[in-house]
């Protein structure tokens, strides 16, 4: 099977852009990615495009050129962009296209997401009585995890502080004001034990990734980044997942994040010990801590020491969310995972500027987790 390689990445800043439609942000990201790859729109043979707010994001061809290119809309909750990149890579791997694109764009209104529970297959009373909030799950999951594995409130605050510090050095990030752990701990509790500055917020942005067949990469770039594996998993019975009115008692079942990483490592022939830089879904500070273990980067409970030692900092042994993650960038759902890919590509090329991790990184991964229990992993290497 032919391997897919990334030859261009483009990122529209994440934040608030009054008056600028999501499609325009997406078109900007596509143009940046094409310029990075040295290709033009008529060369693109097909692609996948994800958005939550834009009903038909393939309308982006009206901004880029009506070439007849097949663009397929994808949506998979917070795993949307992971799905777009996986399908675009698959189109190369199976020989359907030689040159393809993954695009993500979104423009969310301010505040927490609101939805009718019925769209998630959940009865009305769950929303009416105030149970239908994703933030509850994150609060409850980390509360139990802290109880079981000895994670402190200070460690939650250190994670948030680290991501805001990384975002401060990222000109395309949204939240660029550094906050000390003490300032994070002084912010109001939203869902115990999680505080205001421990949560990411919905916002706006776009990103795009151009890929081609590995055997043609030399035509475009001297620094292709290989797509070693993509994996997507949904929840299994017994796992504790978001938006669950109940779940079975019995043998604990691992989360879709564990399942997706296991599949991706096997496909790639790469283990967590080989990973130089990581992008983990940090919907909240607790999620980053839990996902460190669920991705195999460490054992449950080791985070307390690793984070205190600075292991997940840019100069540390296991740099996580070097561009500020979701906490620093916010979450335009359709674009978020491609923003992660953008950062890993820069790190593996050695062009991440002040955020560049030391040494010669060879392997990085990206990870998304979202409702109602879906996880997407992409493993990249030089």
């Amino acid at each position: 099977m032919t391997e897919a390689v990334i030859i261009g990445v483009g990122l529209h800043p994440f934040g608030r852009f009054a008056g600028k439609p999501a499609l325009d942000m997406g078109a900007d990201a596509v143009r940046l990615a094409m310029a990075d790859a040295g290709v033009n729109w008529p060369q693109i043979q097909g692609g996948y495009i994800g958005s939550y707010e834009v009903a038909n994001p393939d309308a982006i061809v009206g901004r880029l050129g009506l070439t007849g290119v097949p663009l397929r809309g994808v949506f998979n909750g917070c795993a949307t962009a992971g799905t777009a990149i996986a399908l675009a890579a698959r189109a190369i791997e199976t020989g359907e296209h030689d040159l393809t694109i993954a695009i993500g764009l979104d423009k969310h209104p301010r505040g927490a997401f609101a939805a009718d529970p019925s769209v998630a297959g959940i009865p009305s009373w769950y929303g009416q009585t105030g149970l239908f909030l994703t933030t509850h799950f994150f609060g409850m999951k980390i509360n139990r995890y802290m109880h079981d594995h000895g994670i402190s409130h200070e460690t939650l605050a250190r994670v948030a502080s680290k991501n805001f510090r990384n975002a401060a050095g990222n000109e395309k990030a949204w939240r660029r004001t550094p906050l000390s752990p003490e300032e994070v701990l002084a912010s109001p509790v939203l869902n115990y034990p999680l505080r205001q500055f421990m949560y990411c917020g919905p916002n706006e942005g776009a990103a795009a990734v151009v890929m081609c067949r590995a055997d043609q990469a030399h035509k475009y770039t001297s620094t292709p980044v290989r797509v070693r594996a993509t994996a997507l998993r949904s929840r299994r019975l017994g796992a504790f997942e978001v938006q669950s009115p109940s779940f079975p008692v019995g043998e604990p079942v691992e989360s879709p994040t564990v399942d997706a990483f296991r599949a991706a490592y096997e496909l790639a022939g790469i283990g967590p010990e080989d990973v130089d830089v990581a992008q983990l879904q940090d919907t909240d500070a607790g999620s980053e801590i839990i996902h460190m273990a669920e991705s195999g980067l460490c054992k449950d409970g080791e985070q307390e020491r690793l984070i205190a030692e600075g292991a997940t900092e840019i100069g540390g042994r296991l740099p996580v969310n070097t561009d500020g993650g979701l906490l620093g960038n916010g979450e335009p759902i359709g674009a978020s995972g491609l923003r992660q890919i953008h950062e890993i590509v820069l790190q593996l090329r050695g062009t991440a500027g002040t955020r560049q991790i030391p040494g010669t990184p060879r392997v990085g991964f990206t990870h998304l987790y979202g409702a109602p229990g879906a996880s997407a992993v992409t493993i990249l290497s030089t």
Partner: protein
Amino acid sequence: MTITQKSVAEGLFTWPADPSSPPRLIGSECADCGLVSFPAAPDCVRCASTESKERLLSDHGTLWTYTTQNFRPPSPPYDGPVAFEPYTVGYIELPGELLVEARLTEPDPDRLRIGQDMRLTLVPYTVLDDGTEVMTFAFAPADFVAVEEETS
């Protein structure tokens, strides 16, 4: 004066409840593999059977985890009072049955503890303009005094 009450939904818990018939959550049990579900589900997510029977769930269990809700949830779907009072939610493990998510009656997280005994109750989570209380299920610490002594 009699306060009028109504349930937030049919088929969620036994209703009306009174001292001679305390409330129970209405779940279901798969006729083929025995998987217990709440709310009651006609289809089994373990064995894909479409045959199930009603099962009243245990009215007590232990607190598996919890969190607080310190801001008013987006409305709709939330239809609680406009004057917002923070509340708590958690998962209660009903032994041998399932873990169920519910509101908790104790609003102070410092007075909750993972593993503590909890008992089912009904609470008015909002009041309609005509004074009718809309009732939903919640879990209350079963023996709070004992918990305080143990943790102090």
